[in-house]
């Protein structure tokens, strides 16, 4: 009974979120792909913190230096954060790049060091494993003509989508890009990722990057919002990030992100249920926690059922010969097979989810956005075909990592950047 109520409640939450996004898309179609030409080009300082990034740093710097932006208005500062490989040596080969060194570990420390040397009116944060499009700056800088804009984030694409995990992440990034744009319209963008987010230097010099949490990009974003500035997102400016390969690297990255999310929502708890930030405080953050809890609930049910069935399966071998086990077909004598979910309630559940999902996909189809992300129609279709698997397999994997992150935060596990 409790299980079915849980299923139905989560179905309602799921459909509500999907419909909410659908309405946001439909109501803001015209705002999603706004393009303007910059009237002036303020000086921009790009900060690239790097630690043992000898494989990527060269390409990252090359992509930054080749950006279409007045050369005298572009300052590139790379901060070596205690690398033990050739990172520093590679950076020093670029004459136009200022090389700084920060022995105190932590991305925030490196960024603060860079910030202290930056002379640009606008500061960009760029991870050493990210490549930027040539027109990335020009397509975002005009947003700062509005004095209420504190930061601008861009559209992040996946650079290395090899393997199933890579493809799943690509789908995830696609959805994330759309949702980020949508919540930025509601002035609720709560992160300025290191994929070339641009920030007003005077604001962040006051706030400073903090090592309090594992995700300094979320911390700084929330601080900017609290100061009354807007964080906007541009779907026009594109950067490419290198996603982690293999489960271990993905788990490491995600646990850091999720722990950072928890830490930041606690650190900035004053945002919760705060009338000044109605969308973020009353809906986005609470809903984020609700969906995480629902996900963990689903994961627990699946794992519990799996282990119960496994235990029963193993126990059965002591009483029933293997040949007979194989011959077993669902018979008339009550064998009470564990049913994951009631079949008739399942019909309701599937209907509810699929309808809302189709509505969401349909509203996305109305946008040139899906084409924009998925490059061409063929690949778009292929990636959308991956969605059911993404929702099942990858979703549970992500929920498992959320469990770890919650557990680690609960027991104050040692932090690793």
């Amino acid at each position: 009974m409790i299980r079915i109520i849980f299923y139905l409640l989560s179905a309602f939450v799921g459909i509500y979120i999907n419909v909410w996004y659908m309405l946001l898309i439909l109501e803001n179609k015209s705002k999603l792909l706004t393009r303007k030409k910059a009237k002036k080009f303020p000086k921009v300082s790009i900060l690239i913190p790097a630690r043992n990034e000898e494989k990527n740093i060269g390409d990252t710097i090359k992509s930054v230096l080749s950006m279409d932006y007045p050369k005298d208005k572009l300052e590139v500062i790379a901060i070596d954060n205690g690398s033990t490989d050739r990172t520093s040596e590679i950076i020093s080969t670029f004459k136009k790049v200022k090389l700084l060194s920060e022995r105190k570990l932590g991305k925030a420390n490196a960024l603060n060091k860079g910030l202290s040397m930056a002379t640009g009116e606008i500061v960009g944060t760029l991870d050493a494993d990210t490549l930027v499009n040539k027109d990335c700056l020009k397509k975002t800088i005009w947003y700062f003509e509005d004095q209420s804009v504190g930061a601008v984030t861009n559209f992040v694409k996946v650079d290395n989508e090899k393997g199933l995990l890579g493809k799943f992440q690509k789908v995830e990034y696609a959805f994330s890009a759309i949702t980020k744009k949508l919540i930025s319209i509601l002035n609720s963008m709560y992160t300025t990722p290191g994929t070339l987010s641009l920030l007003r230097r005077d604001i962040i010099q006051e706030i400073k990057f903090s090592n309090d949490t594992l995700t300094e990009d979320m911390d700084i974003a929330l601080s900017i919002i609290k100061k009354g500035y807007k964080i906007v997102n541009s779907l026009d400016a594109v950067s490419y990030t290198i996603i982690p390969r293999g489960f271990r690297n993905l788990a490491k990255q995600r646990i850091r992100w999720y722990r950072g999310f928890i830490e930041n929502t606690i650190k900035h708890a004053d945002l919760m249920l705060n009338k000044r930030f109605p969308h973020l405080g009353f809906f986005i953050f609470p809903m984020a926690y609700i969906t995480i809890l629902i996900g963990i609930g689903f994961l627990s049910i699946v794992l519990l059922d799996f282990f119960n069935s496994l235990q029963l399966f193993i126990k059965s071998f002591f009483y029933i010969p293997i040949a007979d086990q194989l011959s077993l077909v669902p018979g008339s004598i009550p064998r009470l097979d564990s049913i994951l979910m009631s079949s008739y309630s399942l019909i309701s559940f599937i209907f509810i989810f699929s309808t809302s999902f189709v509505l969401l996909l349909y509203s996305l189809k109305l946008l040139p956005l899906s084409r924009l992300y998925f490059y061409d129609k063929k690949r778009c279709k292929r990636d959308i075909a991956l969605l059911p698997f993404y929702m099942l397999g990858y979703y549970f994997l992500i929920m498992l990592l959320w469990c770890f992150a919650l557990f680690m935060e609960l027991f104050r596990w040692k932090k690793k950047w």
Partner: protein
Amino acid sequence: MVRLNIYTKAFLISAGIFIIGIFIGMNVEKFVASDFISRTRYVEESVQEIELEMLYFQGLNETYSCNFLGEIVRRTNNNLDELSGQLSRYSETNVLFGGTDVENLKKRYTSLLIKDWILQERIKKMCGDKTVTILYFYDRRGCDDCIIQGNILSILKNSFREKIMIFPLDRRVDLSMIGVLMSRFNVTTVPSIVIEEKTYSGIVVGEKLERIACSILNENITACS
């Protein structure tokens, strides 16, 4: 203003889709329930028919009808077997909307099962029928051993076919007759099996059940060879 409205709009649309979903689910349930009820009615009718025929034949002291009666009881038992599967699925799935309906269906089904068992016992006495009757007490929830025992009985039924009749009784069904049978056969735990008035508690493995069945049947059938 417009922005805040989006929450209300989303709520109304979601509620609409949600209600339609629930409505579809409930109608499927109703359809399954009506099918189940009509099949139960059919079985009830055949049980009544057997009772009537037995009364008639007993009065006439006719024994030639044994085969005929045995056949009807067996068919009823097979029907009950099928209903059992349907009922266990139905009851698992209708906890939310079924409520008392499910409980009533279970009671009706269990009553039929017990009636069928009583008839079979009477036929055995009247006609000297050698069919093995097994009363199987189980619990629908929280009893892993019951699942294993159920599997063992399914396998046994597959190999002995009509020579074995199994009457699975869920101890959770609120029927006083279950309590009567449990106390009569001294059943205190589940799973428990009663064969020829003898109670076996805990899991009884297939080999042991086969031995018991073969000794009762005392026949040269494939399952015993």
